[in-house]
């Protein structure tokens, strides 16, 4: 069937308007739900660093009850970051990936403080590069700012069955109880070693990932970088707690 040019143009215009309108409608209608989904996911990941979040648990409620959050700068001082309109940005809404591209001195570093009957732990977001794409995570430190209480990693595209294992509980649990400061009080971070299936006496060495050395190196670099970024904050906190002991 041969149609006239004006019919074709008219058809194209109508189709575009209808489809465009439909998509705009769907986007607006689902926007709120999507924001909630993202917020829920962030909170679940933060909580995931210190506890097993059960399926169906009220994450929002749990989060509100247990977590207080703040933002620090490179010097370890608490700050109130503002967006372009001068409104304060919630620590949960800080986009770590975007911050990562800024100069460390200008970055905002969120700290999420988890508190239950066993005391406080400090949860820090970390971000870096794996083998194929970005990796990220949340590290929970005990109140001594030294012992790792728990860790939760996420990744975008690490190799399934190899590098992707960083998001398995079994791998994440290997970091538990490790220490990031040496006995001389120097920051040494923790590092996954080459090879797998060994246990290490050193509190800074973690059993590695066989077949995923580059992912493991990415994890090590990510942790080291972020412990360094937060080191001034750690220093202040450690001084405070030592003053308390004395």
């Amino acid at each position, binding site marked *: *069937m*041969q*149609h006239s040019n004006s*019919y*074709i143009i008219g*058809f*194209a215009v109508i*189709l*575009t308007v209808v*489809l465009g309108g*439909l*998509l705009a409608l*769907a*986007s607006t209608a*689902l926007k709120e*739900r*999507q924001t909630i*989904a*993202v917020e*829920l*996911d962030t909170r679940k990941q933060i909580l995931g660093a210190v506890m097993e979040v059960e399926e169906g648990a009220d994450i929002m409620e749990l989060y509100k009850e247990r977590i207080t959050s703040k933002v620090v700068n490179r010097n370890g001082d608490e700050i109130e970051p503002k967006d372009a309109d001068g409104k304060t940005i919630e620590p949960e809404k800080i986009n770590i990936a975007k911050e990562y591209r800024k100069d460390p001195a200008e970055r905002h570093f969120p700290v999420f403080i988890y508190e239950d009957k066993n005391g406080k732990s400090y949860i820090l977001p970390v971000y870096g590069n794996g083998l194929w794409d970005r990796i990220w995570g949340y590290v929970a430190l005990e109140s001594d700012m030294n012992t790792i209480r728990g860790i939760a990693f996420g990744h975008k*595209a690490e*190799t*399934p*069955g*190899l590098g992707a294992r960083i998001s398995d509980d079994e791998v994440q649990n290997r970091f538990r109880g490790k220490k990031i400061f040496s006995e001389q009080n120097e920051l040494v971070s923790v590092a996954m070693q080459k090879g797998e299936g060994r246990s290490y006496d050193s509190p800074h060495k973690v059993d590695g990932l066989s*077949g995923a050395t580059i992912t493991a190196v990415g994890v090590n670099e990510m942790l080291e970088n972020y412990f360094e970024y937060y080191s001034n904050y750690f220093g202040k906190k450690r001084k405070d707690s030592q003053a308390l002991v004395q």
Partner: protein
Amino acid sequence: MSTQTAEVAQVKKAEALFSKRRKKIITDPLDDDNPITIQVLGICSALAVTAKMEPTLVMAIAVMIVIVFSNLIISLMRNVIPGRIRIIVQLAVIASLVILVDQVLKAYLYDVSKIVGVYVGLIITNCIIMGRLEAFAMGNKPYDSILDGLGSGFGYAWVILAVAFFRELFGSGAIFDFKVFEAMGIAYQGNGIMTNPVGAFVIIGIIIWIQRARNGYVES
């Protein structure tokens, strides 16, 4: 639009809801006219998503939804679509449906959308869908087109699920993230080639081989 609904009503009177011809529309793409193994379409996504069962299942369902609805929509519009721009019209319909699926996943199944997010966008370029629109929906009635969409969707689904089954089993020693070999007490070191797209090539090749040997299909 009204003329088409009338047509459907007429067909219902004349032909049973699942007549022999219609059953064939559904069952053909499962085996004798399978989109992946016989027509060799949609291979790219069959290679990309099949490393694990879970994302593969979501992908299969998403493709099925898109193929059924785009078949239906194009079939409804088939008499008014100008022939000269029909391809771009088909693409626009597919793309809109894919974006809708993606948005709904992001809103209601965020965890799943994190895994399959990238691949969902790639459904737009899945040749199976455009192939069905061009070859079937442009010339057939809406109800038949839905059946054809379902058939092709299932034909695609079983192949990629079969591939994912073997890739996850031998690649990570698991099914739906459940460690099978560990549960049986066998120490299993994952096979790296299976977690790579190369593994999918090998398995699809074997499936095609078995199928053609059984059906006696010869490339014409």
